[in-house]
């Protein structure tokens, strides 16, 4: 670890200068500012400064009823909006002990997994953009448009779906969606082979990612990092398996885990997760039961019994948890949103000390950050 003293004791001491990897920067994919103290190309200290897209989601939770807060949940992390709505809706259903019909649970799993694939595709395109390759972004968005068409046909919007409702889903899926999803799964598998030969086996990518930004599982535990970051460090922590919610316990899928702890491991975890999500979608399509998609007697005005209720889901970036503290009224007393990107980024300062600047950007890209997810 290169500390400031080590640099200073370098014979002719070269001064450090402060660089703003500021709010408007192509590599931060949003408005994250990193105040970097640099010595030449080496980073002495990289301190992320957040809050440039703070949109008061938690304050809005305290002056909106449960149903009114749903559109907010899909604007926290707009790339895996389904799992965020699933977290909030799950917490309310847990408090009301509401039984969601099985068909709705299966539809929730299918749409969440498709949303995870579209989120990983955006990450893949943007990450390769950081490393200098522009073509993968075009391939990734071309496939992603197919997912968005399918999700748009049932939810009505491309990105910020408020598709899940308290007690079920907004409307039923028609067989045009089911047929399209099967075609998409069949189309995506050979595409993944092409992605592997185009990018994953590319020597330039391997040189840029292997042994870059090692994050030990101990550091993940100390900072609370979850998702592909902790799975890239050898710990198979996945909320779908550790705290099974919805009907995830009925599918068999593997939690991809790599021991190498470097950026390449996190890259491979996400590419493998796309394959696992395709498997889950296929199994869910085969076992999709008939029946209603909305619980019968959902009270019009929801009044949660007093107390606090948590619900955690596995978003594309990690563990998303909602804590609703209710005092019996129809407006929640406090809504706390535990978002994965905040914890994943909090270890960046320690992980990037002493690295070269381009490697630190590769590390930040491998953390897969969505900045409104950090600032809420």
């Amino acid at each position, binding site marked *: 670890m*290169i500390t400031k003293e*080590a640099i200073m*004791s*370098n*014979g*002719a*001491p*070269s*001064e*450090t*200068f*402060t*660089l*703003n*990897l*500021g*709010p*408007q*920067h192509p590599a931060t994919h949003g408005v994250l*500012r990193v*105040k970097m103290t640099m*010595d*030449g*190309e*080496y980073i002495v200290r990289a301190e992320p400064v957040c809050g440039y897209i703070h949109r008061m989601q938690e304050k809005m939770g305290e002056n909106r009823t449960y149903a009114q807060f749903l559109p907010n949940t899909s604007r926290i992390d707009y790339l895996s909006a389904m799992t965020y709505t699933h977290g909030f809706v799950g917490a309310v259903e847990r408090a009301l002990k509401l039984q969601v019909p099985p068909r709705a649970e299966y539809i929730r799993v299918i749409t969440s997994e498709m949303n995870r694939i579209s989120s990983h595709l955006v990450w893949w395109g943007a990450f390769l953009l950081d490393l200098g390759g522009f073509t993968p972004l075009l391939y990734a968005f071309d496939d992603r448009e197919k997912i968005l068409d399918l999700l748009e046909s049932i939810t009505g919007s491309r990105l910020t779906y408020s598709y899940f409702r308290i007690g079920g889903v907004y409307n039923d899926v028609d067989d045009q969606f089911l047929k399209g999803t099967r075609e998409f799964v069949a189309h995506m598998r050979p595409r993944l082979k092409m992605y592997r030969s185009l990018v994953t086996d590319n020597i330039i990518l391997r040189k840029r990612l292997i042994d870059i930004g090692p994050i030990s599982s101990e550091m993940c535990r100390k900072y609370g990092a979850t998702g592909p970051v902790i799975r890239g460090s050898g710990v198979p922590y996945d909320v779908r398996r550790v705290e099974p919610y919805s009907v995830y316990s009925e599918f068999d899928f593997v939690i991809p885990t790599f021991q190498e702890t470097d950026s390449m491991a996190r890259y491979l975890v996400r590419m493998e997760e796309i394959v696992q999500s395709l498997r889950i979608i296929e199994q869910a399509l085969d076992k999709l039961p008939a029946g209603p998609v909305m619980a019968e007697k959902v009270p019009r005005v929801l009044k949660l019994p007093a107390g606090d209720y948590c619900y955690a889901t596995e978003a594309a970036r990690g563990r998303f948890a909602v804590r609703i503290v209710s005092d019996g009224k129809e407006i929640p007393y406090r809504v706390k949103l535990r978002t994965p990107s905040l914890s994943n980024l909090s270890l960046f300062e320690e992980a990037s000390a002493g690295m*070269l600047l381009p490697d630190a950007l590769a590390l930040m890209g491998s953390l897969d950050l969505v900045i409104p997810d950090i600032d809420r």
Partner: protein
Amino acid sequence: MDDVLSGDLIYVFAFCLGGLAFAVGPFVVVHLLSERKTRNYANKTDQYIECGMEPIGDAWIRYSAVYYLYALVFVAFAVDVLYLIPVALVYNRVKEFVIRDFVELVLFVGILSLVIVYAWKKGIFEWKRRKATPNS
């Protein structure tokens, strides 16, 4: 000074004038066509670009020497290419000197590429910093 020489001189002079026009021309055109003033709302128009933030500290500081060595390697090859341009004009113009020209070219470029071998050994391309005192 017979007229042939002055003809050539005029030709060279015209060529330099053309080069100068290419250099100064855009400034004149831009000055004529661009708007007179820039609208600004926080009068930060002439502040250095730093992702929308106020630059912290000064950039005129003592840098590590690696940048300088990197630039030296570039200069070595820039000069190398400079000499190759006239060679390209007369390359295998005379039929029986074909092999000789090729060997001379390879020799010239070979000697100059020793710079890269030397720089590689010195570890300039890995951006390693010279450690006066071995790092503990």
